[in-house]
């Protein structure tokens, strides 16, 4: 391995991995073995093969990562070509993930990239459990929120409510909008997860429907009229698909007609796409900067060659240049990444008894709880129609209702006594059944754990 060509190729990486320093992570031991281990054992999933995803794949491959996978459900469009630099004109119509993987493998020898042309929801938890680091190059809150929930679902806490590092699935998340961008490091249980800080994302601008219908004043109003009102009038029973170019073309031409009627300028096809999909035009240089920051953080997480950024970098290149790292704090009661309240039960405890117990429990004090487990509503106190549908569960043991898992998370809602006052609350509980062991039943909280 140690021929001169190889040495030359990894010269820059070796400067980070072979030398000690005062900014290195804890327990960092510089050695050539580190690079070999990085290439052999670190498995990184890149989510998204668009503007950021292309950059991330290239950057990670050039930083010494060799086991990469990429997931994206989109096909290449002409309008992507200005910044999604792995794609060529003849690639239009092909899956982004496949072309991106191919191109990077052609250019960077030794790297292996497995593409997945599908939705992120199509993969099961086992798929995600296989990766050591997840790098996100996404443009939607929904997708981030989904991956965040998946990654945090692997996290386990010990009996002192400390996160167990071996169950931690680190994420690096990049995002850009025009000349602005962010890069963040999410170490579930240590730094805030996406849900802890969802307020960082401004809600989408929504115009009043009556303005769209009666008094349009801007190009965006005309586009939203065609998208939200006219589409339904003409295509009864057929829902609009923003990923269908024919649908988009139809909205565009209706928006043009409407704009002409009201003497409004500025409706173009790409602006129509932007408004409908809520996309702000991407700038290649912003993607490159943000991706570089993310790839570096991935390298730091894996090798410890430097302390990771703590924990949220913002970049603004709009007027001059401004960048800043902010240390956001975790929401200790976060329903997604928080520890919740640990409760030990016998396998024979009925749901009714469990609910009674929550009223007494000093850390919960919720006398009339409704209980949910992994999307299943075990008992609902209200409304009456749901109460009736779930009432028969009350006499069943919680252990059975939870699929005979030795330990898992449930969520409870109801009025609870907090500091002497009664307030409605929603809590996460970690249930452990005394004497029960998992017998190969699906259990996301121990998947990948030791």
């Amino acid at each position, binding site marked *: 391995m140690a021929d001169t060509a190889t040495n030359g190729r990894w010269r820059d990486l070796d400067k980070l991995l072979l030398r000690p320093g005062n900014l290195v992570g804890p327990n960092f031991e510089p050695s050539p073995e580190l690079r070999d281990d990085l290439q052999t054992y670190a498995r990184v999933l890149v989510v998204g093969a668009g503007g950021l995803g292309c950059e991330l794949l290239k950057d990670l491959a050039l930083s010494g990562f060799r086991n990469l996978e990429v997931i994206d459900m989109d096909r290449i469009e002409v309008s992507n070509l200005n910044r999604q630099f792995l794609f060529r004109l003849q690639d239009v119509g092909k899956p982004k993930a496949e072309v991106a993987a191919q191109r990077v493998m052609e250019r960077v020898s030794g790297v292996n990239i497995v593409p997945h042309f599908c939705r992120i929801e199509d993969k*099961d938890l086992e798929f995600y459990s296989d990766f050591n680091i997840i790098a996100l190059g996404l443009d939607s809150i929904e997708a981030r929120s989904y991956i965040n929930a998946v990654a945090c679902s692997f996290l386990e806490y010990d009996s002192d409510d400390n996160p167990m590092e071996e169950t931690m699935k680190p994420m690096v998340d990049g995002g850009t909008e025009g000349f602005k961008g962010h890069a963040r490091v999410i170490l579930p249980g240590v730094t805030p997860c996406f849900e802890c800080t*969802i307020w960082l994302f401004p809600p989408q601008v929504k115009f009043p*429907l009556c303005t769209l*219908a009666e008094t349009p004043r801007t190009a965006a109003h005309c586009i939203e009229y065609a998208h939200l*009102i006219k589409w339904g009038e003409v295509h009864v029973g057929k829902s609009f698909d923003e990923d269908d170019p024919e649908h988009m073309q139809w909205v565009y031409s209706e928006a043009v007609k409407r704009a002409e009627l009201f003497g409004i300028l500025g409706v173009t096809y790409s602006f129509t796409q932007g408004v409908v999909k809520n996309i702000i035009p991407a700038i290649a240089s912003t993607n490159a900067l943000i991706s570089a920051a993310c790839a570096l953080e991935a390298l730091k997480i894996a090798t410890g060659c430097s302390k990771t950024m703590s924990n949220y970098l913002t970049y603004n290149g709009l007027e001059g240049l401004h960048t800043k790292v902010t240390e956001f704090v975790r929401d200790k009661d976060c329903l997604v990444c928080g520890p919740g309240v640990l409760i030990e039960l016998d396998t024979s405890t009925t749901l009714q008894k469990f609910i009674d117990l929550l009223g007494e429990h000093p850390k919960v004090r919720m006398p009339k709880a409704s209980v949910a487990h992994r999307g299943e509503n075990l008992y609902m106190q209200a409304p009456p129609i749901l109460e009736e549908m779930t009432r028969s569960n009350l006499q069943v043991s919680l252990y059975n209702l939870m699929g005979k898992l030795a330990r898992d998370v449930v969520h409870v809602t109801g009025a609870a006594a907090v500091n002497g006052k009664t307030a409605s609350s929603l809590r996460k509980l970690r249930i452990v059944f005394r004497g029960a062991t998992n017998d190969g039943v699906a259990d996301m909280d121990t998947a990948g754990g030791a």
Partner: protein
Amino acid sequence: MLKMSQYLNDGTVGIMIKLFKVKEKQREIAENANGKAPVKKQSAGELRLHKDICELNLPKTTTINFPNGKDDLMNFEVTIRPDEGYYLGGTFVFTFHVPTIYPHEAPKVKCKTKLYHPNIDLEGNVCLNILREDWKPVLNINTVIYGLHHLFTQPNHEDPLNSDAAAVLRDNPKMFEANVRRAMAGGYVGQTYFSRCV
């Protein structure tokens, strides 16, 4: 449980590659074992909705229904039977679709019953400020249902989605009332046919 390194108080982690190495070994072993079934997860939005639904305090004119059963709270129907005003005696069904990032975004609400109303168009789009421009994460499903209820007691001509109905309400409330009666009984108002909903 192994403890290769410890995360630090300053929110950074130490070298993780050793953990990756151990995991890779485990993965090779696990690959020989049977695959595990995918497991349904609950999004933060679903959990918040769960809370909203448990806390519903509906007006007596309103009922709620879950067509997909007890485990799909993201899609439901609300039926309103106004007990006063122009729409007294009618039955109006609204469909709710709640997005996964609720309450960051508002529920999507449509009226399934075709009706003659200044703020609801013939396709069921509803002009209610809290469903769009004035939505805030502190609002909840109960607020939206009360908002819908309000549209029946206080239809207003200033935010028209059905501009014909709005003009009639503004210029001739008596005629508006007659039109509403005719539509609810099943019949034509102008060129538009309405099915009976009383």
